[in-house]
């Protein structure tokens, strides 16, 4: 068996690096951009997973970072949303410079823990802070793509309305799907007619877990470390069992 021989010579099978060409980009906020890539050989992914992105300069120096996938699963294509990190190595290029037709390398999909598939029929609670809503958006998009009937409650926490990604899409999904509820919560300043005063996420912002026939709510929390720790504590305080809460955190080392 030639394939086996090859595998033995190369050692354990690793996730291969693939070439990805930027098809289009669009700004989500003043400092965040969604990038759609054409990736020959990409077989699709589970919502919530991420990719490692590698850029190599002409002198051979390469920088590598991981970014959550924002899109629903598709073969040959994926979308990332990248927030600029000051003095970051990759994000300023991805957000401000990279043009359609430019290429980079990526590998994935990575991560089997923080993921959602249509096989999960329980209600879903998504709690995202800042750019932490990216993998949660993938879950929402996958839920809609697959026609799953799992109820989704998506809580997006941002500094101000200007900091929310996917504004139009979230609004239209919220309006057109009876079993999808989208809450936008602001920590610094909100809209004039908001019933909720701007401020940090608190216990009253979060629903209790569902129970009974639908199964226990699956909660996914993603954001900066401090946000994730406090949101996870609040969910526990709200009665969500620890085993039903999955978290993903990122720190200022991103970029």
């Amino acid at each position, binding site marked *: 068996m030639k394939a086996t021989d090859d595998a033995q010579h190369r050692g*354990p099978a690793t996730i291969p690096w693939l070439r990805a060409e930027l098809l289009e980009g669009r700004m989500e906020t003043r400092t965040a951009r969604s990038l759609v890539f054409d990736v020959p050989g990409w077989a699709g992914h589970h919502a919530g997973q991420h*990719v490692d992105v590698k850029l190599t300069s002409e002198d051979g120096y390469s920088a590598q970072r991981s970014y959550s996938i924002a899109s629903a699963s598709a073969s040959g294509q994926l979308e990332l949303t990248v927030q600029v990190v000051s003095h970051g190595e990759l994000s300023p290029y991805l957000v401000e410079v990279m043009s359609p037709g430019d290429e980079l390398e990526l590998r*994935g999909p*990575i991560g089997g*823990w923080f993921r959602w598939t249509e096989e999960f029929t329980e209600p879903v609670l998504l709690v995202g802070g800042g750019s932490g809503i990216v993998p949660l958006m993938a879950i929402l998009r996958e839920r809609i793509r697959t026609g799953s009937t799992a109820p989704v409650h998506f809580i997006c926490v941002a500094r101000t309305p200007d900091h929310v990604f996917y504004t139009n899409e979230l609004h239209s999904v919220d309006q057109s799907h009876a079993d999808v509820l989208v809450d936008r919560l602001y920590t610094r300043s909100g809209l004039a007619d908001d019933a909720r005063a701007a401020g940090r996420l608190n216990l009253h912002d979060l629903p209790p877990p569902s129970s009974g026939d639908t199964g226990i709510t699956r909660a996914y929390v993603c954001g900066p470390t401090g946000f994730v720790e406090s949101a996870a504590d609040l969910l526990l305080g709200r009665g969500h069992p620890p085993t039903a809460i999955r*978290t993903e*955190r*990122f720190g200022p*080392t*991103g970029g």
Partner: protein
Amino acid sequence: MEQSHEFAVDGNAVAGPLSEIFAFDVTSVQVNCNHCGATNPFAEEIAYVGGPGTVLRCADCASVVGRFVKTPDSVWLDLSGSASWRIGTSQ
């Protein structure tokens, strides 16, 4: 014990590099801390990635449960802080 994890990420962020070493997805591994006995998914342990290698700390007590360092010709794994890794085989 509460520590500041302001500069930390989590195990999700190191799964890509570790996929070069392990044939399974590390994020779903249940890591048992040798210091406090807590068991947490690898994905939710605390990861420090800024140094020459990666340090993984227990999400409960912050003890080091794993160290991973890549040199030009080798990869070093120090798992002495883990009592066990439970690797699921069902998926």
